[in-house]
């Protein structure tokens, strides 16, 4: 979890963490000789899940990983895994035999029987796509010694959806773009993203709205370039462009109306520190302004790590988990406000 990962404040700008919340790399793989997940019956899914789990046990993956059988755990726990970005919504809501392998610090997860038989992910704070890729590639290489990945001479690694064939590699970064949202220049980023063959999604991936001014940017094309070329293009060319654009929008805002920005930031932190009832949307919105305030140096008594982890901790599944019981809508508002006040005290 972000709150547990030490990231000294002077590293914020080193890892471009003023704009990049997290980066991720994922590899999609399928077994040769078995139907893909959407064409498999429950028995076939079960067999595949066991085969992958056994292989993962054999190759001794780093970080003392555990196997979680998603059909065995409660809805609430599936929701928590989803809110922490360990599994996708689709994976949380499935009904067939499926699971996830997660390491102890939750940086690496392997979804089994999501859209593809295997989807390996690694996540890191700030801009570290290259570091993520190194890790996930090692997992792929280890599993490859035990599992027959479906591979096609011309098309590369095969996947259920043609948009994932080839390398099966997708890089993504969760970007915080509050200044571009304020100046109304987000549309330009989105248009540029389309031209650069990037997908832009919300905080919780495909189909989710971009609450808190977070935007998940990822490469759409997985075929025709080597993994290294895709990575270089993403981390060295595409992301720096967007990061600089957001930074210059932030500087422009300060230049044009420093008092106005300070007023917004200070009002929002005051509300978060004293509210007794708060809805998730309002909370995300105010946290976003506060995050901007911390990065602009307006607030110096707020830890960026706390803000980053609050975006997850205020979600419904985490509130339920905190109380240990189902919450009424009003209790959720109370618990959310309590969580925020404690963290920002």
């Amino acid at each position, binding site marked *: 979890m972000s709150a547990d990962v030490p990231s000294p404040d002077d590293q914020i700008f080193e890892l471009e963490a003023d704009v990049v919340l997290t980066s991720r790399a994922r590899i999609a793989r*399928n077994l*040769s*000789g*078995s*139907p*893909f997940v*959407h*064409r498999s019956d429950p028995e076939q899914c079960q067999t595949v899940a066991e085969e992958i789990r056994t292989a993962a046990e054999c190759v001794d993956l780093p970080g003392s990983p555990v196997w979680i059988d998603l059909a065995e755990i409660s809805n609430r726990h599936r929701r928590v895994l989803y809110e922490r970005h360990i599994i996708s919504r689709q994976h949380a809501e499935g009904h067939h035999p499926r699971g996830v392998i997660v390491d102890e610090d939750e940086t690496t997860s392997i979804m089994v029987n999501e859209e593809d038989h295997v989807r390996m992910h690694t996540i890191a704070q700030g801009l570290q796509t290259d570091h993520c890729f190194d890790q996930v590639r090692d997992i792929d*290489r280890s599993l*490859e010694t035990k599992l027959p*990945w*479906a*591979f*096609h001479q*011309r*098309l*590369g*690694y*095969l*996947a*259920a*959806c*043609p*948009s994932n*064939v*080839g*390398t099966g*590699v997708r890089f993504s970064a969760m970007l915080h773009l509050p200044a571009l949202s304020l100046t109304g220049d987000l549309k330009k980023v989105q248009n540029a993203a389309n031209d650069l*063959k990037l997908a832009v999604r919300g905080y919780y991936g495909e189909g989710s709205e971009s609450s808190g001014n977070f935007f998940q940017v990822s490469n*759409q*094309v*997985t*075929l*025709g*370039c*080597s*993994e*290294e*070329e*895709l990575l270089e293009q993403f981390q060295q060319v595409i992301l720096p462009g967007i990061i600089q654009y957001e930074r210059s929008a932030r500087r422009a805002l300060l230049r044009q109306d420093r008092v106005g920005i300070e007023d917004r930031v200070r009002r929002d932190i005051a509300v978060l520190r004293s509210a007794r009832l708060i809805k998730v949307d309002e909370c995300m919105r105010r946290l976003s302004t506060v995050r901007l305030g911390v990065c602009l140096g307006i607030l110096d008594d707020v830890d960026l790590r706390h803000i980053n982890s609050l975006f997850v901790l205020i979600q419904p599944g985490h509130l339920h988990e905190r109380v240990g019981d189902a919450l009424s809508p009003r209790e959720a508002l109370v618990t959310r406000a309590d969580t925020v006040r404690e963290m920002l005290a």
Partner: protein
Amino acid sequence: MKCDRCNRPAIVHQIIISGGQHKEVHLCEKHAQEAGIPNPGKQPINKMLEKIGTIAVPLKATSVSCPQCGSTLAQIRQSGLLGCDQCYDVFDQLAHSMVERAQHGATQHSGRQPGQGPADRARQHERSRLLRALDDAVRSEQYERAAKLKHQLADLNHSKDVPDDNDGAGESA
């Protein structure tokens, strides 16, 4: 895609099914005429379909199903998903056009191959570069250059067995 009988671009694509087997035919304008297939250039709808990446397939083809997963052409078209690794061979043409569309025109993998270790990275970069140059040469009909590039690619693939530890990682390739 090239004509089956010469080097010109194919304009007619058909899947022929007989005795449970399916066969693909790709022909240029001239050879299509010789084979008695009407020139699609005179049928605007065919041209249109070609442009948006759909390939005209005889209706009969819908009865073909993948021996491994049972998927039919209609199911794949409807869901946008292939059923298994064999589907990519059984429904080669459809898969090709689906991939081409999803991947913004890319149709050739130039990334890592199974079993490739970190030591192969430099060669992989070279392979990737050559494949793109080849694609470019074919598109612009520079066949001499294409032949040369094919040669270089073959040489590169040939050198696979030669140990190469340019980044010193102790992993078997």
